[in-house]
């Protein structure tokens, strides 16, 4: 065998990963987009359960309703609401970027802040409306 067989893995520096960077809002929002997406992936199970219970029987449906009406269930649903709105607004941000717009630093920062603030404000607004409808 020639020289080629003697190659050892060189101790090269690896490409820098998350821990090397100073945390930034845009970076955190990117991570949150993926986390909320992953959470919604399992949260949809609740929606399908609710629909199936409604189709199945009155007692099944009442059971589902009592779980969602419990304070613990409502905390989960509030998280679901926030994740859905956060991911939807983040999705709009991505669709804007996909058209090639919104890449200047000021706009990127503004959209990240608007995404975060909008998700919190809309979640609270939705729950205030829901609470008002239930009273």
């Amino acid at each position, binding site marked *: 065998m020639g020289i080629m067989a003697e190659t050892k893995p060189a101790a090269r520096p690896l490409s820098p990963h998350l821990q090397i960077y100073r945390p930034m809002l845009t970076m955190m929002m990117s991570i949150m987009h993926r986390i909320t997406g992953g959470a919604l992936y399992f949260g949809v199970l609740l*929606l*399908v359960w609710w629909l199936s219970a409604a189709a199945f*029987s009155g007692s099944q449906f009442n059971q589902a309703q009592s779980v969602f009406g419990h304070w613990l269930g409502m905390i989960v649903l509030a998280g679901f609401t926030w994740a859905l709105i956060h991911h939807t607004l983040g999705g709009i941000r*991505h669709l804007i970027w996909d058209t090639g717009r919104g890449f200047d630093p000021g706009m990127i920062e503004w959209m990240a802040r608007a995404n975060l603030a909008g998700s919190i404000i809309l979640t609270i607004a939705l729950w205030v409306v829901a609470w008002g409808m239930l009273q």
Partner: protein
Amino acid sequence: MTMRTPLGKVRGLGSAKSGAEHWLLERVVALANLPLNIFLVIFILGHLGADRAMVAASVGHPVVGALLAVSLIAILWHMKLGMRTIIEDYVHGPTAKFTLLLLNSAYTLILGVAAISAILTMSFAS
């Protein structure tokens, strides 16, 4: 119709055997999800504290039932595409990756069948 050049079509078709269509499809389904999610939120708001008969009657309405079915298909499709990307990003062992991709398909398919079955049951019952 295609918006891609012949070179663009074959570029990047390495070991994954596919290129931009997954990315494009994820965007198209995401776009569909925007109005459908708003419909879903309004539907749920409209049925807070509703009993089973009220929910079943609403779902039994052809337009509402159809919109619900389309919403769930679009959501589950987007979920399947998104989770595929997550799995491919973080799971590198061929067996683990294949198993998780299989579970991803099974999970979204089962939820889809359950949801459509529930919607159809209520549609035909009313």
